């Protein structure tokens, strides 16, 4: 057996002219919670679909638990539990029947299915809803059921595609806790895709930032943030006609390089001299350079994302339809 749960080597997937996955290489260790972070259409879901052999890779190679995903897709499927983006539970079946169906599809013996149903419903805190129709559950409950449904065959890897899209804050936190618990208590390796920076930050041991089918950065959240700045980040919003002068001023007075994106200027400050923010604003005032706002903060994954892709993930994700069912109808 391999020491890695998932290994991907130079994976490419083309759809006619579009290259959805463009030479991805990554290794995910056993027991990790690994996040693929990127905006819509970055190639996250395609990568996952290839791992599950729902799509054939155009070129490259991937191993799951040491098995080649193309040659041994049956073994690979037994190792993986999937929670798809569309939160699929069977709405017209009870929670129990949902789990029983998948127990049977994984060809578990009936008595083991029985045992797993009780155990997993308890894990998802749904024991009292065992005989209720899944369609009557709230979004959060359905999502938890979908997660434990993917665990019925004791997979060593759990793959979640955008697990918290459309959930409110409480349900999101509850789901994070459930995933952490599954990872900690069962030693399940978790691979998830997300476009929420805070989710990647809170949940993942390691993150790969993926954009236009390529991995742009890889590391722990702390490493990624430090790669931007070891200290602080100053963010100045100003009208675009002034940005040039502001950048020049900061370079002249403080010997600091800045970068600009539209009306936003970011300055990386490696150490924090006392009242640095105040000094910058008074210099700006002296030079009569009007600004809209100025702020200072610790580097976040958004800063990382901004630096790597040149745009904020919020900008790219803005067109995202909140409810996954809306998107389905639109198809």
């Amino acid at each position: 057996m391999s020491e890695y749960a998932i290994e991907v080597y130079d994976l490419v997937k083309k759809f006619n002219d579009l290259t959805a996955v463009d030479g991805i290489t990554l290794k995910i260790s056993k027991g990790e919670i690994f996040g693929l972070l990127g905006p819509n259409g970055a190639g996250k879901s395609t990568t996952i679909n290839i791992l599950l052999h729902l799509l054939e890779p155009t070129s490259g190679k991937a191993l799951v638990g040491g098995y080649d995903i193309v040659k041994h897709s049956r073994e690979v499927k037994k190792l993986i539990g999937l929670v798809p983006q569309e939160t699929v539970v069977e709405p017209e079946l009870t929670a129990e029947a949902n789990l029983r169906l998948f127990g049977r599809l994984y060809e578990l013996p009936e008595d083991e299915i029985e045992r797993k149903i009780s155990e997993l419903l308890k894990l998802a805190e749904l024991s009292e809803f065992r005989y209720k129709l899944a369609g009557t559950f709230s979004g959060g409950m359905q999502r938890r059921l979908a997660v434990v449904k993917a665990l019925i065959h004791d997979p060593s890897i759990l793959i979640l595609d955008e697990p918290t899209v459309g959930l409110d804050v409480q349900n999101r936190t509850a789901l994070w806790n459930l995933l952490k618990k599954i990872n900690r208590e069962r030693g399940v390796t978790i691979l998830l895709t997300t476009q929420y920076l805070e989710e990647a930050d809170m949940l993942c041991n390691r993150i790969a930032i993926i954009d236009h089918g390529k991995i742009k950065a890889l590391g722990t959240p702390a490493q990624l943030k430090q790669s931007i700045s070891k200290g602080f980040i100053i963010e100045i919003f100003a009208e675009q006609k002034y940005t040039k002068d502001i950048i020049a001023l900061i370079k002249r007075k403080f010997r600091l390089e800045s970068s600009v994106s539209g009306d936003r200027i970011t300055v990386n400050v490696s150490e924090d001299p006392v009242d640095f923010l105040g000094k910058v604003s008074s210099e700006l005032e002296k030079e009569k350079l009007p600004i809209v706002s100025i702020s200072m903060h610790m580097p976040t994954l958004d800063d990382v994302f901004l630096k790597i892709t040149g745009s904020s993930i919020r900008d790219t994700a803005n067109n995202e339809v909140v409810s996954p069912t809306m998107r389905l109808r639109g198809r």
Partner: protein
Amino acid sequence: MGILHDTYALYIREMLIFKKNIRTSIGRSLIFPLVLILLLGNLGSTIRNLPAAVVNYDNGVASINFMNALESSGEISITSITNQHTALQMLANGDVAFVLVIPPGFSAASASKPNLVVYIDSSSPIASASAIAALEQTAQSFGAKLATQNIASRTGNSQAQPPSAASGALQANNAPSFSMYTNYTYGASESYKDFLIAGIVIMVTAFGSMWSGGISLLTDRQFGNLKTFLVTPINRMSILFSKMASGITQSMISGFIALGVGILDGGIVAGGAMGWIWIIVFMFLSAFGFSGIATILGARINKIEVFSLIGMAITMPMWFLSGAFLPTSTLPNFMQPFSIYNPMTYAVDAVRDVMLKGFISAANLLFYSTILIVFGAVMAVLSYIAFKQTMG
């Protein structure tokens, strides 16, 4: 184990969903047979309370008896009018379906009877045909001959008095009266309803098959349920087989409901116990073929609206060309070849033979079932190909 086990697990899922929606499913499978058998089947076969006006110039015992006899069947409801002009006015207004004029001297004890005159509104063919049949029957029993006058158009010169009516009515009728005997050689019943039931049962079975298995495959693809099945280590074909099997089961249930409605409404299965077995066999064969068509569409089409449209475009002509509603011999010449190449024709014929004739010859049985088995096999292979292409 293996594919059978997987198919069974998915089949159970389909049937649980079916059970959950049992009321809608049963309701849906009741509507067609109820409407078609109860309404269409009973429509036109007999008439009740057809309004008629009688102008009785005779007023003798025989004429009163004649009117009573005419009314006794319950088909015709008579209003007595003293004046022919008023009666014809009523006919023109559509208040009555026909006017019967009983000439003076009808009750006279002569060997020959004068002609009865009937003015009939032929704009309603079924009603007028039944009225003429009832009148002829009654007239024959009284040894009277009927002279009918069609008033085809109400807007036309409905006021026009038939010139020969008055004189014709007084003419002596010397023609001998005769009776016609009808012998039903094979059919246990000659009613349209019994003819229709076989067609409806097969139609509902095929319809159900089209809608249950195919739609569920389409929605599973649409809502991502299919993906959750595809990531399990099952044989992918078990998904197709479970859809076909559940489609067949559900449509057979619909077919039995249709048959039940037909039998409660007075339909018959002349074939007895063997007949029932053959009905089940042919219901199964037609459900099988159509579940194949349904899964081809379900594997290919992404929108439920498109599915319904194409499904209708396939099934509707097949029903009408199968002789489910009217004998295929009533089709125009250019359409008849279509009914020959329509597999449903043979399913309908087979079930109709069993229900009405009470038997089905070995040669026909072999012929009908071979056609349906070939049809089903071809559709199954095509749906296998379609499914393999979309699901890999």
